[in-house]
């Protein structure tokens, strides 16, 4: 491969000199204030913690292939699933789409040079890494075994693992989340291109706005909860521990007040990604744009009012249970509205089954199952049975792995040409998307059956009649692991050997496609002005300045 700076046959809009290579050296990356480089830093970090969390999931599935506890001891099994949850939730799922795609795209999509507070943006990445290092340190020194939920009094008085270190890691990481949320909200309010009113924003921006709202309002509650937990553990202040006069259920209220909305921190940005991909690969404005936009805000708001649906059988009043059940039913409606609108967008579209679209349609499929089983868990009489069984495990993996990770991977594939200016192999990537879809479903669908049968979650051993379904699940996990490995390999390959990408390889509409691939340091040669609604393919075809095929 010749030096890209001298190549004569670059596709239109490919930039040999871009944000990636205008300056060189480790320092130019570690002290960068460029939102695009910070996105790449996040990409590297979250990929590491995803791999780590995935490795622990692999060990869990190998252990569960047989009913006996024969691979690891009970206390190590408990550490595995706890650290798997902590790594995946706090250090992968919550920062992944906002940190990587949000950082990279938000300024591009609104025609800005950067986010509102570039230094704060870099600080967020450092705080995230410091927090993650605390958790990683704890992992190397024996980890923590309370479950990622840290229920008291188990976590305050009955474990001698590293609760405080991991709690501190999550606490510090929380500030990363709060600062990122503030930064994005201010950016969206203040830095939109001339002519870009709220209803001309891409839906990904709406999703990120709703997410930021939760990060800013919810995360401080988590911080307070962790401080109280640490104080209870160290000084026995008697808030949570009944042995000192505390309330045995109070911690769960505090914890879920953040941690339920946190689920929406994981899914709303992924939903935004799906809206972008569906519009681009149907070449059509999203059906019911305003409904989809307001559904994001609706989910973010209602999401704060449903926390006790995690606690129907935890000893709360049955009337409180009824209130939280009906509120949870309400939050299902905006999710359903989004699904119907995405589906309707395909009608009379110009649908192309490219790799990002495969992930997007896969997302819709698994999200429908994740959402519908969520309404089953919200139904009081059913939750009394399937609560804390593998049914629940399957449900939240359908939402958080099936949906959020597929949304993330779809987004990475959609914007990869913009991110690095290179294309990846079309056939191999489609194959991998199908492998991920199949592997995911083979892993987690049997868990619904296991859960209804009564297999509790967090069990190191189980009765022998549950083995067949567990073996299926473990086999599926192997397929899923391969499905995740293939993209990692070809995306790395593409950095050096992938064909160069044009400015707009998908022929999509959106400001990010109007600059070069990869974008220059300041994003746009001339500041863009927005004159049409988002996803206006008709106007674009009429202009025909740039051929749609790009």
């Amino acid at each position, binding site marked *: 491969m010749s030096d890209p700076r001298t190549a004569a046959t670059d596709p239109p809009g490919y930039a040999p000199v871009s944000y990636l290579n205008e300056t060189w050296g480790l320092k130019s990356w570690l002290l960068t204030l460029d939102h695009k480089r910070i996105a790449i830093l996040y990409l590297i970090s979250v990929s590491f913690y995803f791999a780590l969390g995935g490795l622990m999931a692999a060990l869990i599935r190998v252990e569960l292939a047989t009913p006996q506890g024969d691979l690891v001891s009970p206390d190590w099994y408990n550490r595995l699933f706890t650290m798997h949850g902590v790594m995946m939730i706090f250090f992968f799922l919550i920062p992944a789409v906002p940190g990587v795609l949000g950082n990279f795209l938000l300024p591009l999509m609104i025609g800005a040079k950067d986010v509102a507070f570039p230094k704060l943006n870099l600080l967020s990445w450092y705080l995230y890494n410091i927090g993650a290092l605390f958790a990683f340190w704890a992992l190397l020194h024996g980890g923590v075994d309370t479950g990622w939920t840290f229920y008291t009094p188990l976590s305050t008085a009955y474990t001698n693992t590293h609760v405080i270190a991991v709690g501190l890691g999550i606490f510090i990481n929380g500030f990363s989340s709060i600062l990122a949320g503030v930064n994005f909200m201010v950016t969206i309010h203040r830095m939109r291109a001339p002519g870009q009113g709220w209803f001309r924003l891409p839906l990904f921006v709406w999703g990120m706005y709703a997410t930021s709202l939760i990060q800013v309002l919810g995360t401080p509650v988590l911080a307070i909860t962790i401080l109280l937990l640490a104080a209870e553990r160290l000084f026995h202040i008697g808030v949570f521990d009944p042995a000192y006069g505390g309330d045995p259920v109070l911690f769960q209220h505090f914890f879920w007040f953040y941690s339920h909305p946190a689920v929406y921190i994981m899914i709303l940005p992924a939903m935004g990604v799906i809206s972008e991909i569906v519009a681009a690969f149907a070449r059509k404005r999203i059906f019911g744009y305003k409904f989809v936009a307001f559904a994001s805000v609706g989910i973010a708001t209602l999401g704060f009012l449903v926390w006790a649906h995690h606690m129907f059988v935890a000893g709360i009043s049955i009337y409180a249970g009824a209130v939280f059940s009906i509120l949870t039913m309400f939050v299902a409606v905006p999710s359903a509205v989004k699904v119907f609108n995405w589906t309707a967008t395909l009608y009379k579209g110009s649908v192309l089954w490219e790799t990002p679209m495969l992930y997007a349609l896969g997302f819709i499929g698994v999200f429908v199952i994740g959402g519908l089983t969520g309404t089953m868990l919200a*139904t009081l009489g059913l939750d009394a049975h399937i609560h804390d069984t593998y049914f629940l495990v399957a449900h939240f993996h359908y939402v958080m792995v099936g949906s959020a990770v597929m949304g993330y991977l779809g987004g990475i594939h959609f914007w990869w040409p913009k991110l690095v200016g290179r294309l990846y192999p079309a056939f191999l990537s489609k194959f991998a998307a199908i492998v991920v879809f199949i592997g995911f479903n083979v892993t987690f669908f049997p868990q619904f059956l296991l859960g209804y049968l009564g297999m509790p979650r967090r069990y190191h051993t189980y009765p022998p009649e549950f083995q067949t379904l567990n073996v299926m699940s473990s086999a599926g996990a192997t397929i899923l692991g391969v499905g995740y490995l293939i993209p990692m390999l070809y995306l790395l390959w593409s950095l050096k050997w992938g064909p160069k990408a044009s400015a707009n390889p998908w022929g999509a509409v959106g400001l990010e496609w109007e600059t070069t691939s990869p974008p220059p340091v300041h994003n746009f040669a001339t500041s863009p002005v927005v004159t049409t609604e988002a996803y206006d393919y008709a106007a674009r075809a009429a202009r025909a300045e740039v051929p749609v095929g790009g």
Partner: protein
Amino acid sequence: MWSNAPLFPPSASELARSVDALFFFALAFSVFFALLIAGLIALFGSKYRRRHPDEIGVPVDDHAPSSKLLELAWTAIPLGLLLILFGWGTWVFFHQMRPPADAVEYWVTGKQWMWKMQHPDGTREINELHVPLGRAVKLKMISEDVIHDFFVPAFRVHVDVLPSRYTTYWFKADKTGTFHLFCGQYCGVEHAYMIGKIVVMEPKDYEQWLAGVRPGRPPLRSGEELFAANACNTCHRPDSSARAPILNGIYGKGVKLTDGKTVTADDEYIRESILNPQAKIVAGFQPVMPTFKGVISEEELLQLVDYVKKLPPPSAGAEGAR
């Protein structure tokens, strides 16, 4: 392999079957919507697939009446179905959580990592509970340490077992056999080993079983014996109105405290008064009672609370002394 791999759990109570009915309704609703969405994606995705590279989709007018009608339909129809699910689910749940008045009370104490059961006659078991068929059984449960959860898949109900607070589980078994008991709330290192069995027997077999239980674990001392052994009766006795409140007939009544508040003398209050007597002093008395924390176990507390609960109401004179 499949003969040993059931896909659906056994059910051993009428309520379990009503949970299944609710589940099948939710399942039908879910399968319908999942197939609808998958079908539409497959249909639109193939019928409208891109034929040449410059093709664009046909723009749709969001403001057309048909579009608004669609939005309304797919908001209102799922909402309606979800409200049915909510109503039905809540109805089932209230039955699951409210034991009938004639239920016989058994006691369950959870601790890391075992279940301790007590029958009404004082028979004790570990990790097993034998119960008669057709009788409503109410379990009064408490934990000695962390939060546990009593879960019998065949009854389709979970209830958490809390430290320092009583919770109730109930069932009326309608099928004999042995059923799994799991701890359903993660409780530490050996959580997966905190399992047991519920053995449902014909009533006459149950009586025989009770009669034949060998005193490997002798019954606890009764509440009455504990009341005497811990010298509760030196102060709490019908003829001594000066040092401590008379407990006869107190259960379920309002008790006036020194700070002017009134509390109901329920199980929680009686338990707290034994472990932490200074917390809520009855008006007109001195805080002289010592704590019995660490002296009386949770199992004995269950006995004592039950003894106080069942004390016969006092004579008119004793009532006046209060």
